[in-house]
Structure formats: structure tokens, C-alpha cells
């Protein structure tokens, strides 16, 4: 298609399929949480519809692209679209980082009596503000009579205000995972360089290394969750557990998506879809991976260290 022509696609069924898929997924999820037995299956159905939609829609776009239907203007529209999509992702993570900072700097110290101490003096006489702790057992939770807990609780209520013993140790798995993810950023940069220099064989090698490092990261992350749960750090362990799991969890989800996208890119590289000059698909995914990498670095510094 020539540069002077506008491209306007045919009508399409994919959006309505996507809407049906995502609505089914959400309705199933909500019912699952409310204890409906069929909730899980409906969720799975919705997810399957969504995956079908993505394969179909992206497949169609890739086909049109390789058939040369798109021109530079369409390419630029995709670039704008991808960049602002990623900016919306940044703002999504910002909400959770904001919650982390607020809890660390304001709500937990205030509950501990900092500032004018109007919030808590008698309400929380056994409460001590400490970052790594706090859990809430619902009132009426059966604790064995005479149990002595080695963590603070509000007398006679069973509201435990502190559990587990310590924050997650940043040495060990978290450090290893950071190294893995950073290494994947390096290998991806080599792949990017190879693509720009036109060395197709090297691209494949570096991409495979990137995908492997990303998958290893996910594996270790699951291991870490296992350890943390055994040590008593749960999603329900108060604000520390909440921010820890939500931030790392959403990050892990994005890594999973990134690994899938990189795999697709690997496939497309082998098919010869990209040239040294024209490889927006690769650039978009590469940037996404770098973004996920930076989010992790932020997590590592702010959740594990500072």
C-alpha cells in the first residue's frame, strides 16, 4: 500500500467477541468469589474466549502487516497506541506504589501514635507500629483458650496485630531474582542489537536466553511465595502482606504476559517477519520488557530494601 493512502480496515467481529469473553470472565470470577460452584468453569470459559479473541485479532493484524497492507502512518498509530497503553500501566502500578508509600509513611506510624496521637491512644493499647507485621484475625476466630501468642494482640479480642517474625529477607531469592531479570534485560538488549545489525541467528539465541531467564524468574517467584506463606507472611498479614503480594503479584502477572509476548516475537523472528529497519512488533515488546524490568527494580528497592 502506498504512503499516500489512508488505511481503514474492514468491519470486525473480534471486539464483540472480546467483550463477551471479558464479561464472562468477570461474571464467573464474581460468582466464584461468592461461592457459586459453577463460577470457576464460567471464568475458564471467559478466559478461553479472550485467548481465542487475542489469537484471532493479533493474528489478523500480523497477517495484514506481513502482506504489506500497512504503511508508515499505520505503523505510527500503533507506536502511539503502544506507548500510551504502557503509560496507563505505569499509572496502574503507581496506585499500588502510592498505597505502599502512604502506609509506610503515614497510616502505620499514625496508628502507632505518631503525630498528635488522636487516633489510637486507648483503642490500640497493645499496638506497636512496625512495618513488617500486622494481621487481622476476624473477631470470633477460634483461638485455643490460654494460647500465648508471641506477637501483639488486642487483649481478649483475638485481633492479632503482629505476625510474622520478620520482613522478607532481600538476600537470597529476591536478590537472585533481581539478577535474573536484569540479566534478561541485558540479553534482550543484545537481541535488539543483533536485530538491528541483521544477524538473525544471534537474535534467536539471545531471545531464547531472555525467555528462559524470565521463566526462571517466575519459577523462583513461586518458590518465594511458598517460603513466605510457610513463614506466615500471607495476603492476609496486614498491610505489609497486602502491598507485598499485590505489587509482586501484579508484577509477576506482567512478567508472564511479557514471556508470552517474547515467545510470539521469537516465532515471528523465525518466520522472518522483521527487518533491520522495520520491526515495531519487536520494539514494542522489548520496551514492555524493559518496563517490567524497571518495575521490578523499583519493587526490589522499595519493598525489600528501603
Amino acid at each position: 500500500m502506498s504512503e499516500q493512502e489512508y488505511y481503514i480496515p474492514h468491519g470486525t467481529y473480534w471486539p464483540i467477541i472480546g467483550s463477551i469473553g471479558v464479561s464472562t470472565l468477570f461474571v464467573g470470577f464474581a460468582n466464584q468469589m461468592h461461592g457459586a460452584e459453577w463460577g470457576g468453569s464460567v471464568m475458564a470459559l471467559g478466559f478461553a474466549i479472550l485467548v481465542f479473541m487475542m489469537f484471532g485479532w493479533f493474528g489478523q493484524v500480523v497477517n495484514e502487516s506481513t502482506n504489506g497492507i500497512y504503511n508508515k502512518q499505520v505503523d505510527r498509530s500503533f507506536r502511539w497506541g503502544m506507548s500510551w497503553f504502557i503509560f496507563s500501566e505505569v499509572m496502574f502500578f503507581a496506585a499500588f506504589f502510592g498505597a505502599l508509600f502512604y502506609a509506610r509513611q503515614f497510616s502505620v506510624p499514625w496508628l502507632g501514635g505518631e503525630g498528635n496521637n488522636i487516633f489510637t491512644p486507648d483503642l490500640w493499647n497493645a499496638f506497636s507500629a512496625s512495618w513488617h507485621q500486622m494481621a487481622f484475625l476476624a473477631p470470633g476466630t477460634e483461638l485455643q483458650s490460654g494460647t500465648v501468642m508471641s506477637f501483639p494482640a488486642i487483649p481478649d479480642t483475638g485481633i492479632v496485630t503482629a505476625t510474622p517474625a520478620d520482613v522478607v529477607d532481600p538476600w537470597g531469592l529476591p536478590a537472585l531474582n533481581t539478577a535474573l531479570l536484569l540479566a534478561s534485560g541485558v540479553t534482550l538488549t543484545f537481541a535488539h542489537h543483533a536485530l538491528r545489525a541483521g544477524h538473525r541467528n544471534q537474535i534467536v539465541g539471545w531471545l531464547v536466553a531472555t525467555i528462559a531467564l524470565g521463566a526462571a524468574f517466575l519459577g523462583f517467584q513461586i518458590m518465594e511465595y511458598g517460603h513466605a506463606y510457610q513463614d506466615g507472611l500471607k495476603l492476609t498479614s496486614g498491610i505489609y502482606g497486602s502491598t507485598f503480594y499485590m505489587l509482586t503479584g501484579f508484577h509477576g502477572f506482567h512478567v508472564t504476559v511479557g514471556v508470552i509476548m517474547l515467545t510470539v516475537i521469537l516465532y515471528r523472528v523465525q518466520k522472518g517477519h522483521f527487518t533491520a529497519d522495520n520491526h515495531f512488533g519487536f520494539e514494542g515488546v522489548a520496551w514492555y520488557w524493559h518496563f517490567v524490568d524497571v518495575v521490578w527494580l523499583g519493587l526490589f528497592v522499595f519493598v525489600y530494601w528501603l
Partner: protein
Amino acid sequence: MTTATASHDDHHGPEKGLMRWVKTTNHKDIGSLYLWFAFTMLLVGGAFAMGIRAELLQPGMQLMEPQFFNQLTTMHGLIMVFGAIMPAFVGLGNWLIPMMIGAPDMALPRMNNWSFWILPFAGAILLSTFFMEGGAPAFGWTFYAPLSTTFAPDSTDFFIFAVHLLGFSSIMGAINIIATVLNMRAPEMKLMDMPLFVWTWLITSFLLIGAMPVLAGAVTMMLTDRNFGTAFFDATGGGDPVLFQHIFWFFGHPEVYIMILPAFGVVSHIIPTFARKPLFGYSSMVYATASIAFLSYIVWAHHMFLTGMPVAAELYFMYATMLIAVPTGVKVFNWIATMWRGSMTFETPMLWAVSFVFLFTIGGFSGLMLGIVPADIQYHDTYFVVAHFHYVLVTGALWAIIAATFYWLPKWTGRMYNETLGKVHFWWAVISVNVLFFPQHFLGLAGMPRRIPDYSLQFADFNLISSLGGFAFGASFILLTYIVIDCVRNGKPCGSRPWESAKGLEWTLEPKAQYHSFNTPPSRALIEAESQNS
């Protein structure tokens, strides 16, 4: 030579049948879908409002349980904000932006289809909560924790997912508009040649992309607090309900500008046309819009003066809020200066636009009153707040949407609406809306709290007046529906530029704009001749 070549059906106009609307990638079809969806939601949300005003007609409990009253106020707010006003502006943007920038269509037409077709699903999920056990959400449209977490009905989870879907839709719509404006603009059109509606929508898109993901984060935390035992908004676990308010209003304050900036754009088109003068201060309008957008991100806690924030923070948020009055004042003065010594006529769109300037300014001033910390301690959560945001959202945002409908309806349909009926409808609406909302200022200043189904006797008179105004205003939409349908079906065919001093590339198209707006980009001479910045 540039031509739009794509698919065969595009050359011959739209497909036939129902599937046209499901499959469409055409900006005009999708714009119409948005507008009709928004109008339907406006009627639904309006019906809820009628229920609210009926209950408040007299003191005492008349028609409904307090719990149901709360469901009505909650759903009225949610439906109007997310179902009516926002989709209506996206619809206007879809219809008008490609025509105004000399493009054939939106930049990402398939995604455009998806941003619309998520909405009916989200709306259905949201409305279905009425039929669930425990009823619909009843915690107000701001869904503060812990009302929305610990004490809310099960249906709240459906509400959360509906908000997620609405967020996807808005973000995709905003991405599309940015890509369209920056990439599909006629090659000869510079940024400062763009019409103000395009400018305001471009800036609004940045607000949407910055704010909607934060809302998604807030409802996600609500979801896990409710179902998975996290403690974000729960002080027993070290979280804080006030954290919810911070996150919500970090979204919520840009959100109110999302709903009003495109309205500013619309009015900046209509007033010059009927004053027969170029827009006064084009570039200052652009800069004022950008300043308002920037400021909207750093004033959110003025909604939270009574949460026990440190005094230093209250002072900062108060002064930052006052600052917004400066660029907004610039806009109001520019509109007035545009009208100054113009050869004015008052066709229906102009009536709506002029009353917008007047009534929106009232809403803006009551906003300033609320932004002053010591005063807000008195006004907070009273009917004064209700009066304030209805003046900016009904006689602001909705007014501009109706003005835009009358102004561009000839371009959309190729036909003229009935001018007499249009004027009758305007006067009916503008009188009744003031009878409806103006007494609420007095109620608020006298101390009547918002979101309650019953009130003490001294508030009875003003509530009666307000309710009567409400019913009259509600009924005016029956006439509006008739006028629009009558125009589409039987309107007199009009020329391509039915308003003789209207400027803008859209008026150079055929009387009923062709299916794909510009198959060849307009020339530099044409763009300059049609520019607002001259």
C-alpha cells in the same frame, strides 16, 4: 493524491442490517452508537433522579426504604458519570475529531469498536446489581471504604468489575483519540491550527490515561480487601480508609475535568459562530486548558478537608485549588470578549452555550467557596455540594453536550431540527433546572445533609420547590427526544454550512457528512480559511 482505499464496502457506504453496528469500524457509526448509548443511560439515570426527588418531595418516608434510596443515589451518580456524560463526549469526539482535523477516520478503528462495545456489557453488569440479593451498591458514587468494603452487599464485586470494564473502554478511547489527533491530522495542519474541541479532547485524553488506571487500582484493592483479606483500607491491619479517599480522588479530581474540558471546547465553537466574530484569545484558551489539566492532578485532597489531614496539607490543597480559578477565569473572559460587540443571534445552540457560560460560572464560584478550608467545614457533605456539582455537571457538561447536539445535528443528518421547538425546549429546561438546583444552595447553607431520604421540617419548602423543578426538568427530555428523532426523520434538508459564520473543516463536507470524512487531506489554504486561530 491521497485516497482512502481499504475495503469494498467502505466505497459503497455502510453495510446493511444489524451487524453493521456490531462490526463497524467507522467513526461516525461508532460515534452514533456512543451518543445513543449515552442518551439511554441519561434517561435511566434520570429516572433514578426522579425517584430521589419524589422521595424528597415531602419530609417523612413516602415511597421507599432508606436502603433503596441510597441505592438510587449511588446508581444515579455512577450511571450519569460513567454511562452518560463520559460516553457522550467520547461519542462527540468520535464524530467530530476526524472531520475537524481533515482525516478519513480514527487512527485505530478496530480498537474504537471495542471501546464502545465494552460499554453495554459494563452497563448491564452495573444495572444487574439492582436485582441481586442485598440490592445494588448503596454507598454513594464515591464508594468510600469501609462502606464499600466491610459493609457492602455482595453485588459490590459486580460493580467493581463493571468499573474495570468502563476503565478499559475509557483508556482505549483516549489512546485512540491521541493517536488520531497526533497522527491522522491533515499534513498541512499545525497543532495551533487545531480547533479547540480537538485541543480540549487531546488534553482530556491525557487526563483519562493518567486517571483511569488509578481508579482501576483503587477498585482492585477494594476487591482484594473484600474477598482476599488484604488490609489496604482496614486500620486493623495497618491500612487506612483515608488511603482509599486519596487514591479515589487522585482519580476523581481529574475525572471532573475529563467531563468539563470537552465542554469548554464545544462552547468555544458555538459562541464565535453566533457572535460572528473570531474566538477571542485562541492560544490563551489552549494554554488555559493545559494549565487546568495540570492543576487537576495536584488538588485532589480538597475533597477531604474533613478527614483529619495535617493543616499544612489543607493549606496547600486550598491554595492550589484557588489557582484553578485563574485559567478557568481566562476562559470565561475569553468567551465574553468573543461576544463583545458581536452581531449576535440566538439560535438554539447559542442559547445553550450562553446559558452554559452563565450557569457554569455559578457552579465554578460555589466550587471556590467549597475549596476554602474554613468554609468547607460548614459546607462539607451538605446539599450545597450537591448544588455545586450539579451546576457544573448538568448546566456545564450536559449543557455543552446538548448544545453540541443542536449545533452539529445538521452536519450529522443533513437536516435541520425544528428551531421553534428547540427554543421552547431550551427555555423549559433552563428554567426548570434552576428551580431544581438553585434552592439546593439554600438547603445546604441551612445545613441539610446530602444522601438522606428524610429531613427535618424546616427544609420542606425548598425541597418541594426543588422536586417540582426536577419533575419539570425530567419531562423536558421527552421533548428533546422528539426534536432529535423529528430532525433525523422529517427535518428540512440543509446546506453544508447551515450556520453561515461557522468555521471549521467539518462544514466543508457534504451537508450530511460522507461516510469517510476526508479521502484527500485538505489544503493549507482551506485549513487557514477554516482555522479558529486567525
